[in-house]
């Protein structure tokens, strides 16, 4: 189990995350939704320890250090590095040897090409393949469906299901509500750095309504499209 307790994050006087507490059990898929700038990526980075924060993030199985796989919204690729070398680097970093990259090429990517020349969707697929090869315990997927073609979206949903069956902990965000409905067990609505509402699968429509209200409330009328 991954226990997040009173996680807060500030930049100077600006508070980005306020006392967030969550419990994520093995085999559960948790979705985080919220407007742009609500703090989703910062929240993910804090869990991954990529950002310093107040509060605690504890993995309950003290006997092992959990390995976390983090799929960034826009994965960064260094110039002049091929797709295969990227995967090799990620495996080296976790001491994973003897990987057959051709067999592991889930998305049929041109692994001999420089990763920086890939399209947005291909970059995301490569980054996802990388964290899958790392055999992580926890998967943080920041907008995994964004920019990816329909076939690959279907494949990603299946991958998430497989990971769930293997007892992995999955935390993801998406701006496409149907993808969350298809993959998540729980949904958390993040607004202005706070978890406004957490619901189970049956109550997902409630979150959708909340978000619609937030998006449409007065804003469209004020803009007065001509």
């Amino acid at each position: 189990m991954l226990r997040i307790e009173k996680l807060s994050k500030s930049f100077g006087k600006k508070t980005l995350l306020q006392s967030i507490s969550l419990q994520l059990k093995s085999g559960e898929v948790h979705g985080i939704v919220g407007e742009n700038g609500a703090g989703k990526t910062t929240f993910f980075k804090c869990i991954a320890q990529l950002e310093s924060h107040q509060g605690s993030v504890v993995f309950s199985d003290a006997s092992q250090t959990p390995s976390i796989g983090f799929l960034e919204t826009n994965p960064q690729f260094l110039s002049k590095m091929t797709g295969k070398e990227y995967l090799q680097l990620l495996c080296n970093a976790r001491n994973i040897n003897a990987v057959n990259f051709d067999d592991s090429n889930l998305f049929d990517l041109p692994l001999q090409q420089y990763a920086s020349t890939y399209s947005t969707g291909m970059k995301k697929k490569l980054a996802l393949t990388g964290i899958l090869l790392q055999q992580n315990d926890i998967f943080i997927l920041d907008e995994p469906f964004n920019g990816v073609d329909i076939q690959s979206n279907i494949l990603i949903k299946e991958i998430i299901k497989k990971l769930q069956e293997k007892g992995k902990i999955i935390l993801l965000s998406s701006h496409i509500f149907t993808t969350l409905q298809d993959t998540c067990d729980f949904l958390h609505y993040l607004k202005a750095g706070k978890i406004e509402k957490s619901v189970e699968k049956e109550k997902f429509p409630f979150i959708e309504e909340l978000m619609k209200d937030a998006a449409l409330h007065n804003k469209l009328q004020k803009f007065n499209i001509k």
Partner: protein
Amino acid sequence: MKFYFTLQCKRIYRHIDEFGIIPIVGFAIIIALFIVVSQRIFQNLSNASYFYVGIGVAFSITFLSTKRITFLKMTFPNRSFHYIRILENTLLALPFSSFLIYKQAYIEALLLHVLVIVTAFFKNFEVKNRTIPTPFGKKPFEFSIGFRKTFWVFPILYTFACIGLYVANYNLIVFSLIAAFVCCMSYYSKPEPLFYVWIYKKTTKAFLLDKIKTAFLFSTFLLFPIVILLFIFSVKKIDTTLIFLAIGYGFMVLAVLGKYANYPSSVPIFQAFTLVFSFMFPPLLILFIPLAYHRATKNLNSILSCYA
């Protein structure tokens, strides 16, 4: 167009400011360095003016990245795009042509401006999609990326070393060795994004040792032909060769540790400071290497905290 150039000035100003130098002082240093280096070129080279024209053109070509050109093309109408490219190349060539005029090389100054205006119509010089094979695939990162950017340097250096052996010039082979070391060190000049450090399931010590080991192994691979030639050249000078090698490897270690001594900042103040002073007085490496290790450990501990 006016806003574009004002923005470029602001960006240069911010870059210097970010480096930790008062921008006006920074500009003064850049101008002073430019004059000193230019003066040295004219003092030490025959036909320096043509070499100088070459540097000016090469400088304008460095701004020909596909990304930049695409951005300009997408942002500005076709006519403005060409005006901008001509104007920025002219501005870049201006310091060089001014110095050429000062040296009374009027034709060369004119030639430089004609050439940079011609290059303004070039699309790019990048070999974008061709993957250059490297022998560093098992541990891909600094060396595989760096080698692809500088692969052409090594045949030149190996040729220099062979010429050195042929004309019995030990110093020329040593020059090739030093240049090869500098080239390998340059692979560690730019810090990687945080993600590329965070992914490691290693303690800080193991991470740094692995980086140093890789740098040792791969630089040895690239230096090997030159080192062999040095040993063939003179067995009597084996002690001098070994000293050069020891200092060279010392610099490699400092380059690796120096990158993480300022990490994740992209401003390499510590690295630049220690490398410059060690170049002037190499025994300082004994002081700077442990210091860089200490600073790197401190910086990396928070990033690799999960496994520390």
